[in-house]
């Protein structure tokens, strides 16, 4: 399983710093955006596995919009929303738009790490599934080629054996000549 890159989007510098520290310590790659605009810029320029965004932010790009932008750019990006208790309804509505999950403030880090671990697992499963179908494809086509070649080769060898037998059984020729002819033929097969 590989390391995930997580984009933190929050207008509160204290929350940003704290999230950044904890996530980096846990071994994740961390990117930071102060608002939805920055988030959009980063999303169009860099590879991100998970977006961790505040739901309510100043400006016209809030958490829901960040979710929509991320999903539109790459549907395999997972988005976790951070909400105040009072806006849980909005968060639930966001889940319908494709958010992976939401966390209530104050953030419980054990809970956050568990969710991230789950997402990492799903993403590595997705890669496994892609690799399986690709590997099956290649194995199948190469194996069928191999079988065809072996089939033709076996038939060729059988054909040569038959010719040899015909020569060796040919009573119209004396035995010395038969052996000579047979050896000649074998020489040609090499």
């Amino acid at each position, binding site marked *: 399983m590989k390391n995930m890159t997580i984009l933190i989007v929050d207008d509160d510098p204290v929350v940003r710093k704290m999230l950044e520290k904890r996530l980096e310590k846990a071994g994740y790659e961390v990117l930071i955006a102060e608002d939805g605009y920055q988030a959009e810029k980063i999303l169009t*320029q*860099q590879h991100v596995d998970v977006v961790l965004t505040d739901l309510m932010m100043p400006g016209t790009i809030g958490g829901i919009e960040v979710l929509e932008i991320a999903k539109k750019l790459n549907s395999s990006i997972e988005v976790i929303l951070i909400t105040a208790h009072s806006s849980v309804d909005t968060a639930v509505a966001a889940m319908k738009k494709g958010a992976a999950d939401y966390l209530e403030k104050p953030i419980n880090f054990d809970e956050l790490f568990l969710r991230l671990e789950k997402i990492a697992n799903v993403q590595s499963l997705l890669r496994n599934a*892609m*690799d399986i179908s*690709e*590997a099956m494809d290649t194995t199948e086509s190469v194996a069928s080629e191999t079988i065809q070649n072996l089939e033709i*080769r076996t038939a060729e060898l059988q054909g040569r054996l038959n010719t040899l037998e015909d020569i060796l059984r040919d009573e119209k020729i004396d035995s010395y000549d038969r052996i000579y002819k047979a050896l000649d033929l074998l020489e040609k097969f090499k």
Partner: protein
Amino acid sequence: MLKISPEELKLVAQYIYDVSGIYLDQSKSYLFETRLGAIAAEHGCNTYKELYQKAKTDPSKIFERKIIDAISTNETLFFRDKGPFELLQHKLLPEMIDARTPNSPNLKTNIKIWSAASSTGQELYSIAIIIKELLPNSSKYSVQLLGTDISDGAVAQASRGKYNKFEMERGLPGDKLQRYFTMFGDSWTIKDEIRAMVQFKKFNLMMPFTGLGKFDIIFCRNVAIYFTLPDRQKLFNKIADSLADDGYLIIGSTESLTGICPRFIPKRHLRSIFYQKTK
């Protein structure tokens, strides 16, 4: 997802072939798009041509690494196909141990085994587990287990020895899982006693095999299928050079060396096939 044009397809396929020997069918444009699209986006490339040019000129080789990681098919599992591992346990290892045991009791028995395309490590860890169970008194034996792969990502994952549930459940019997792995959250990590037995390194099989030394047993499974016929021929020729005269080669269960390398002859044991060098 960024679309790839036919010209770009040719360019990128040739690039991938040049750096890895992996021959990709150009009818598989979806493969290029799903696997390279994210890298293009991540580096702000608007076309695959741009990505290609960056990759070709990048001295740090970061692009090359990422492209290889993305394009290589790392599909593997613990004890894949079972047969080769039973063969190893019941025939190849006991015979090799006999052949390599020195006359003097003070000397160690040295054996070198190579997993030539180790991907995320399951093949080599399966071999390590068999050796652990077969040779509990390990001080008498020195078994070197080397795993190599061209993908940095796969090598890193192999070295970490961390697997998701699905990777664990495929092929790994429950008792081995409990005995040799520790669970954390949704994933499992190989125990140090097994990890300490193996070494993983990045290595491109298209390169000359200098400095690798000779091996007693080589596993080269399910990697040659991604190469062209001439490259397969070269590969198995180099493998013949790196294998001890009485060594064993194991290839994938759907592969064949007929018409590829006359230096090897197949031998059958129970339901498995292994190869030895012709005299």
